[in-house]
């Protein structure tokens, strides 16, 4: 069974939601039941591959172990940058082995289970926030529930431990729960419509345009693929957020009208938000801060450009080690840097940035730059 598609999953979701809804209306804590449902779904999703289950268990135990270990060392010896970097590296190690071993000689495939890319964020976030002094304890139950929570396990939205734990503790009144339930059902249906109607429609068009070598048709494919990506992923995200709400968890949002963006920076505030904000908070901001403290590079704009480039290249590699993903990341990094330089330097921009006609041009350029990015991502070009 696959999560969030097919008759079996949705029947199971409806059935298993009933006790959660009863608990929610009675103002009882849903977390233990929710964890049980999560285990059921994870098992159903992975049962065809015992190997994947094994890797998942090893991965979670490993991450939990290094987090506990880092907590212990942090409490005993305090803030130490070297230990910190080692543990960040360790938290990323399973994902790196999973991504890099297959492209190295030997083509070893390990830690192959759906969701490792998304789960790794959570482990690394916890290590970083222990170092920052924001996390003082990690409980096994909260950890396991955060890592496995079924709405997010395969593809996000990427949640954060402190936020998730707040939700686990929070008491929701009957009125609020019923209100959330209404929203949840609406969002699951909306997401299903995004996927089954719109994404499916664009997918059909993609199949028709896929084998073309005609340049006009390739341009057509670019737009169709872009919209397919949006409806498929935004549809999934609606459903995941909706399912989370039924179980008392208010997941972060992933999309906010990405195609109205007027520049690329705005686009990354609207597209796959839980991912881009993770990168912003744990990579971009930290690189900029380090460079600002060291005053290297000297100019603010150079620091910004370099940070954009590193940040987005890492994001590209995170998507996969294939060339198209890496180029996609670098493409966005370079263009974000250009956007930054242009907006800070151009007198033309400063003079016109409040004018309507200028917004229209900005929107048009951004939209097409973004769509071309998707074409790179699709692998049709390289």
């Amino acid at each position: 069974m696959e999560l969030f598609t097919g008759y079996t999953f949705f029947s199971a979701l409806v059935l298993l939601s009933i006790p959660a809804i009863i608990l929610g209306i009675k103002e009882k804590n849903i977390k233990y039941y929710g964890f049980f449902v999560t285990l059921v779904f994870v098992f159903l999703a992975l049962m065809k591959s015992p190997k994947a289950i094994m890797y998942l268990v090893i991965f979670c135990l490993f991450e939990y172990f290094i987090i506990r270990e880092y907590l212990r060392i942090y409490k005993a010896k305090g803030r130490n940058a070297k230990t910190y970097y080692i543990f960040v590296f360790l938290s990323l190690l399973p994902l790196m082995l999973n991504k890099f071993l297959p492209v190295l000689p030997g083509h070893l495939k390990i830690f192959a289970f759906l969701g490792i890319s998304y789960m790794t964020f959570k482990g690394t976030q916890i290590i970083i926030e222990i170092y920052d002094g924001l996390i003082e304890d990690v409980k096994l139950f909260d950890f396991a529930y955060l890592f496995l929570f079924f709405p997010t396990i395969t593809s996000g939205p990427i949640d954060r431990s402190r936020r998730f734990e707040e939700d686990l503790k929070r008491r929701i009144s009957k009125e609020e729960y019923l209100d959330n339930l209404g929203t949840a059902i609406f969002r699951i249906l909306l997401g299903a419509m995004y996927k089954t109607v719109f994404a499916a429609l664009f997918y059909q068009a993609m199949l028709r345009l896929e084998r073309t070598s005609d340049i006009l048709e390739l341009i057509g494919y670019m737009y169709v693929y872009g919209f397919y990506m949006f409806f498929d992923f935004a549809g999934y995200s609606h459903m995941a957020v909706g399912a989370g709400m039924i179980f008392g968890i208010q997941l972060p949002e992933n999309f906010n009208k990405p195609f109205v963006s007027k520049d690329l920076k705005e686009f990354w505030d609207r597209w796959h938000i839980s991912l881009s904000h993770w990168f912003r908070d744990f990579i971009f901001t930290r690189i900029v801060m380090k460079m600002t403290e060291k005053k290297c590079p000297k100019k603010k704009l150079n620091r910004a450009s370099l940070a954009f480039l590193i940040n987005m290249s890492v994001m590209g590699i995170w998507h996969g080690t294939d060339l198209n993903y890496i180029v996609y990341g670098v493409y966005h990094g370079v263009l974000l840097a250009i956007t930054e330089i242009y907006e800070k330097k151009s007198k033309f921009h400063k003079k016109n940035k409040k004018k309507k006609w200028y917004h229209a041009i900005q929107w048009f350029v951004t939209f097409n730059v973004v769509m071309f990015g998707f074409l790179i991502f699709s692998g049709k070009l390289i």
Partner: protein
Amino acid sequence: MEEKILSILEELCGDEVVREDLDIDLLEEGLLDSLDYSELLVDIKSELDVVISPSEVTREEMNTPRKIIDKVKSKLQ
């Protein structure tokens, strides 16, 4: 302390309005982007010796001069 934060903000945002209106939404007005925010954290650390880490609070909890001042105040106590 307030004065220091306001002058940091004025410098970063390049606009005096941050002094006049303490409740202005710095994000919505496009006065403080991710880049400025990073520098804000560095400046608060170097000038006031208060460390706020990038993921400590959401951007929405730091979107007005008043909220930023209150956050620094709460960390000083």
